[in-house]
């Protein structure tokens, strides 16, 4: 008798839950990754509007460096940043996730006869491709003049 009552309650509640979850899937309540795992559409990408992207410039050389970079926003706006960093020090700037592209324009160090540009070609970091919301662009300069090297990496969440 007791078991029959349990079954009688369980079936409608399970059906109701399944129905609600199925409906929720259609209005964006369920995680697209979960839907992908069970074979549904995975096209929806998750790019939060409240997150940040940090750009961290680390100077591991004994001289002052400067990194010039350009950030293109999703609305087409551009922010140019010139970031000088003291020897063995670092600087970090933060942008909200409304960023489209981060591009290193030039990196240089203070040489004996003035500023010396580090010869490097760095591909732009595209949000959604090689950089994600919540990620960090790590820019590191190493070595000592005249052998100074630049390394750029997009670290995603």
């Amino acid at each position: 008798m007791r078991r029959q009552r349990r079954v009688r309650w369980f079936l409608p509640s399970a059906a109701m839950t399944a129905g609600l979850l199925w409906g929720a899937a259609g209005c964006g309540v369920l995680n697209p990754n979960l839907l992908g795992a069970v074979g549904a559409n995975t096209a929806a990408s998750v790019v939060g509007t409240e997150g940040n992207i940090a750009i961290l410039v680390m100077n591991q050389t004994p001289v002052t460096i400067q990194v010039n970079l350009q950030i293109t926003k999703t609305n087409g706006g551009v922010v140019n940043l010139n970031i000088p960093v003291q020897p063995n020090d670092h600087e970090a700037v933060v942008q909200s996730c409304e960023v489209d592209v981060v591009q290193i324009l030039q990196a240089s160090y203070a040489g004996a006869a003035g500023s010396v540009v580090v010869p490097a070609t760095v591909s732009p970091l595209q949000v959604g491709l090689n950089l994600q919301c919540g990620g960090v662009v790590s820019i590191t300069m190493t070595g000592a003049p005249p052998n100074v090297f630049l390394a750029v990496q997009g670290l995603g969440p």
Partner: protein
Amino acid sequence: MMRAAAAFLTLMLSALAGGCLNPDFVSTNLGGLYPSAPGDEPFLLVRVVNDTTATLDIPISFEDGTNSLPFTITDLTPAGREVGVLLDWPVTRVAVGDLENPFLPSVVASLPNGINVVIPPNQYALRAGVDYNRGDAIVYRFVADARNPAAIGVTIAKIDGSTQQGPFTRADTFRTVRQLLQLSEAITGAATP
């Protein structure tokens, strides 16, 4: 009926805990996807927002307890809108413009008609332990203000770091920065915050 409701609630809570829900939906209703401030990480985030029609050069001045240090954001256009600087803790005082004199013209505004003006922020320096604490985010917002001769004013807001301590569903940007700095410290021996 009570049991059905209980079963439904249990399932929904399980779904929440297991990450089954859409992060956008969770963010809208519960928060917790990304931190808006460093929270329990050893930083202070200072963000400037340009909600004027002018292009701004904004000097951010701060003290780390011994030295007064500058960081200047140049050519912040209305479309570029915002940029933040992540400062290592401790930061004893912080201001846009001059730390000592808030009425010193120090922010350069290039107005849409081509005229450049230098405006005072008219905001006193903020102090650690009084106006902000470790892990907070300070937001300086530049807005149109008819009371100012250049028609640009500054307002200040704070995001309390104690509300941003995670865990976060998607990513904790500030924790990644701290970890990278610790890695750099291991290589160079330089001190990290």
